[in-house]
């Protein structure tokens, strides 16, 4: 139990550090946000008014505490560009990105696990080389280039979907899915490549372990050894990496939402960044970072439960 408490304390500490970093990034470094927004020519009163409105005239730590408490109460301040509370802006956009993220995770797991296992079981054969080559390419294609290619091939050439014709999930969930499969694929390709590579390496490591030799010594068939013994140990070795995938999926979605015009928090983030909309950007950054830290924490606990060596260390 002590380990759990220790892990929880570290989680809170990390979240505090994130909030500190985010706050620092948006309040200290840029100097006077009002100046930046209204430009240097603005009159003193207008600057003063905006500063007051933004609350940047208060002492720093006060700004920080009010921002943090506001954040937990769900009051994220008002967006400058859209001049409406950040909360309503986030509203359904979070659901869009969440659904996109879910589709990516499902796609990645469904493709990577069999592919990784297949590559490992066909050790030192042409098939394994092909998979290696594909994963090498998969890792090297940037998200935005892949999206443009998908738009061009699937959209303009094959007319499987019309680029830019996003359908909200409330109106027609089927059409939503048919459209979203392409951005999801664009994010998933590099993730599939990475996870396949990890699973294959984990499988190969397990194959050289002594207990596999024991299993062969018992006369177990190739299949029972591969799925009964090796895969189970390989999955336990790979779970921590799935935690890390969440971070890179978010990165991917920021770019892909922009290319496909999907109204998720990724796209909102870019428009808020280009529009220098501090309160909105700050909230989004904090939001995404927290989600990632929490998922890593959950994955960490998950490993404890699954691996008996840790769960029952006497």
């Amino acid at each position, binding site marked *: 139990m*002590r*380990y759990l408490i220790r892990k929880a304390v570290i989680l809170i500490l990390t979240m505090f550090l994130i909030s500190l970093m985010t706050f620092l990034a948006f309040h200290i470094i840029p100097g006077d946000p009002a100046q930046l927004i209204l430009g240097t020519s603005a009159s003193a009163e207008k600057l003063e008014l905006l500063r007051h409105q933004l609350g940047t005239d208060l002492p720093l730590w006060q700004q920080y505490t009010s921002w943090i408490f506001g954040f937990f109460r769900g009051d994220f301040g008002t967006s400058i560009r859209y001049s409406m509370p950040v909360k309503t802006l986030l509203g359904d956009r979070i659901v869009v990105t969440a659904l996109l993220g879910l589709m990516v995770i499902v796609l990645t797991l469904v493709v990577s696990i069999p592919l990784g296992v297949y590559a490992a079981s066909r050790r030192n054969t042409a098939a394994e080389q092909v998979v290696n080559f594909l994963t090498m390419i998969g890792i090297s294609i940037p998200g935005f280039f892949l999206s443009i290619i998908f738009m061009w091939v699937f959209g303009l050439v094959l007319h499987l979907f019309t680029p830019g014709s996003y359908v909200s999930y409330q109106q027609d969930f089927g059409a939503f899915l048919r459209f979203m499969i392409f951005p999801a694929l664009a994010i998933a390709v590099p993730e599939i490549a990475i996870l396949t590579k990890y699973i294959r390496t984990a499988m190969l490591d397990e194959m050289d372990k002594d207990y596999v030799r024991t299993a062969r010594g018992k006369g177990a068939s190739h299949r029972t050894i591969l799925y009964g013994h090796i895969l189970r140990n390989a999955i336990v070795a790979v779970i921590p990496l799935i935690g890390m995938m969440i971070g890179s999926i978010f990165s991917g979605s920021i770019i892909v939402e922009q290319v496909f015009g999907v109204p998720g928090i990724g796209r909102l983030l870019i428009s808020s960044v280009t529009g220098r909309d501090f309160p909105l950007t700050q909230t989004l950054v904090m939001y995404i970072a927290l989600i990632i830290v929490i998922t890593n924490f959950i994955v960490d*606990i998950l490993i404890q439960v699954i691996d008996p060596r*840790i769960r029952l*260390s006497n």
Partner: protein
Amino acid sequence: MSEMNSEKGEILEVSHVNNYYEDTGLGIFAKRQKRQVLSDVSFTIHTDEFFGLVGESGCGKSTLGNAILGQLPFEGTIRVGGMEYSKSDRRKFTEKVQAVFQDPMSALNPRMTIGSTMREPLRAHNIGTREEQIRAVNDMLEKVGLDASYADRYPRELSGGQRQRVCIGAALMLQPELIIADEAVSALDVSVGAQILNLFHEIDAGADFAMLFISHNLNVVYYLCDRIAVMYRGTIVEIGSAEDVYHHPVHPYTKLLLAAIPDFTSRIEDDGTGTLADIAKANAQFEVRNEDPEGACCFYHRCPYANSECLKRPSLTAVPTTDSEEHRAACRLAAEQPSAQVDEKGSVAEAFQSTC
């Protein structure tokens, strides 16, 4: 030789050393337990003496070795040549004590030639110029049975035995007064191990240094050492001259160790007709009872002679022996009867079987 040590003076003083292992455990369900590794260990080694420390894995003998080298924290005091280890003046301390470890394969920096590895101690204490250091290395290589041509080779080009010779050479570069050999021959083949044991004899004749020889093999320790200490669960249960401990053991655990060592005189006989009970009876001497009361003798849970008197931890009491060297055992049997003569293996085994 520093004049401070009289002819028979102590080079190593270990007094009341305790050490705890903080087992934080990995799982969220693991509680943080504090396990005692060394409990009240005290002994001394005379200058120019080969002292054997023998015990099974996990009894704390390597922990003690590392504690003497200042590599891990402990309670109590350890003095080498009158000097305690302090992190601030590590250099002065390392001039007095050096070490040879078990696994020659990982004991040498793979990216460094043999010559520069052996010059490392001289560089660390900036003794002599580069040429003097190289010459010292070449002399040492001859002394340990290799030759100067090995100086510019890399560890991966040497066999296990050759690498162990390099480690011994490196340990001797500073002419230390004490060498800690932690399982120095255990990882080697039998024939190579014998060469290393012979090497220890040859260099002992040349330079005069004391050695703490740590091993799980009582035969090797008996062969090489003048005095032997037997360790069990972090406690010294018997200490004395090699003759006394090997041929006149007093502590039941030492007897058990001697009975269990496979040798060339006796064989395990079994015609397969025995039942499970017979097997259990034969193995009785090794069975572990589950009552292990706090503060009792560390061998209480396995000892066939244990009684109420053993509930209080016995201290090392002298055994009336013919040999001049002091022979002590941490057991009530020590004072009562003269060291039981171990005529042949059978008698010890029967002693154990009869009592269970």
